[in-house]
């Protein structure tokens, strides 16, 4: 689904004219990934279709959306904060009770990009879990390039400025050239692998918590439904699913119920009541 050279040149020209930011070749993946939600919102089936329309019929509002999508929001640590607060305040205390026999948790960061989310999860778990507990985090992304970056655990100065409390920076990172590298202690409980959520998923042991944030927005309703269905098979029956702030299972997959936690929401598999238990009348 990589962008054609002509489409990339069109976008790069537009962004340079409107923002003076230069998109160098090699950023095709970034352009495609950032523009997909914009294209979907405009009713186009793909980024290529959206850009073809824009080239035929210039539209200042759409131009602005393209420029905004490409010039803001590099991934933050503890992005949106509330899901991490919910994890610490509600989800982990409950899991510490229910998983006491095994003292072990499995977490999936299902669209981990360059790794800020799984590393933020690891920091949260290290702080919140009682001594003697183990955890494992699986970080997956559709981009092999992103998985390579996440796996290396190296971040630029600009990246570590984004939402990472400085105490966490000095505790979990060491200087590496002009940037920072996560410590082996933080890295060791995380496995990274390339994974396409819209293809059949590999077999994995079920997870206690799944972070599937800001990824459903890229899909049409049918694909959302199919992704939620396959993800739910990998979530334990009493597990927790976190979506992005603008995403919901409501109207897409009714096998989940929404649970409000503070200023955010999580989703849990609905308890399946066996037909015989309903009784008559």
């Amino acid at each position, binding site marked *: 689904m990589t962008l054609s050279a002509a489409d990339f040149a069109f976008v790069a020209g537009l962004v340079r004219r409107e923002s003076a930011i230069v998109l160098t070749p090699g950023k095709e993946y970034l352009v495609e990934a950032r523009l997909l939600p914009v294209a979907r919102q405009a009713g186009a089936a793909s980024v290529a279709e959206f850009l073809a329309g824009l080239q035929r019929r210039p539209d200042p509002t759409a131009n602005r959306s393209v420029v905004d999508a490409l010039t*803001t*929001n590099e991934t*933050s640590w503890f992005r949106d*904060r509330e899901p991490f607060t919910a994890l610490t305040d509600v989800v982990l205390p409950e899991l510490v009770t229910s998983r006491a026999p095994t003292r072990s948790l499995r977490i999936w960061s299902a669209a981990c990009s360059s790794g800020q989310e799984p590393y933020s999860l690891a920091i949260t778990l290290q702080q919140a879990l009682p001594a003697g507990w183990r955890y494992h985090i699986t970080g997956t992304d559709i981009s092999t390039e992103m998985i390579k970056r996440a796996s290396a655990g190296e971040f630029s*100065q*600009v990246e*570590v*400025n*984004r*939402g990472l*409390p*400085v*105490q966490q*920076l*000095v505790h979990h990172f*060491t*200087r590496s050239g002009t940037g920072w590298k996560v410590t082996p202690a933080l890295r060791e409980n995380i496995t990274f692998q390339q994974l396409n959520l819209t293809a059949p998923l590999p077999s994995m042991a079920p997870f206690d918590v799944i972070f599937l944030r800001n990824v459903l927005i890229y899909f049409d309703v049918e694909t959302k439904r199919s992704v939620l269905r396959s993800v739910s098979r990998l979530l334990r029956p009493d597990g927790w699913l976190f979506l992005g702030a603008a995403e919901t299972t409501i109207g897409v997959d009714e096998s989940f119920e929404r649970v409000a936690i503070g200023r955010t929401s999580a989703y849990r598999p609905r308890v399946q009541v066996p037909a015989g238990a309903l009784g008559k009348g």
Partner: protein
Amino acid sequence: MHAIVIDDSRAMRLILRRIVGQLGFEVSDAEDGRAALDLLAGMETVPNLALVDWNMPNMNGLEFVTAAREDERLRDMTLVMVTTESEQSHIVRALAAGAHEYVIKPFTSEAMIEKLALLGLVPTGANS
């Protein structure tokens, strides 16, 4: 809410004034730590936030943070270092002296706002 920006670069003072000004802070500024302490001594109420450069003439940022932490009157002021000093040892020294946060230059306004949000100094929704 009131902030004081302490930096010997006029350009940096303007940038920081604009960022925290947009968040609704009333902003004062000083060009080094000594000037800031003098300014603070004359203020009726102490600012909620100080954004402090490290390398400045007369009194540097680390000395200012140390002095501010020793001053009972300035106890409630949140101290954020904003500096090009990016070595781990510098950060650790600043935290040990009493800084609450540390922003490394260059930074984006989003990064600064996120740091202030971590400290509970951004009204809900202002950083979205």
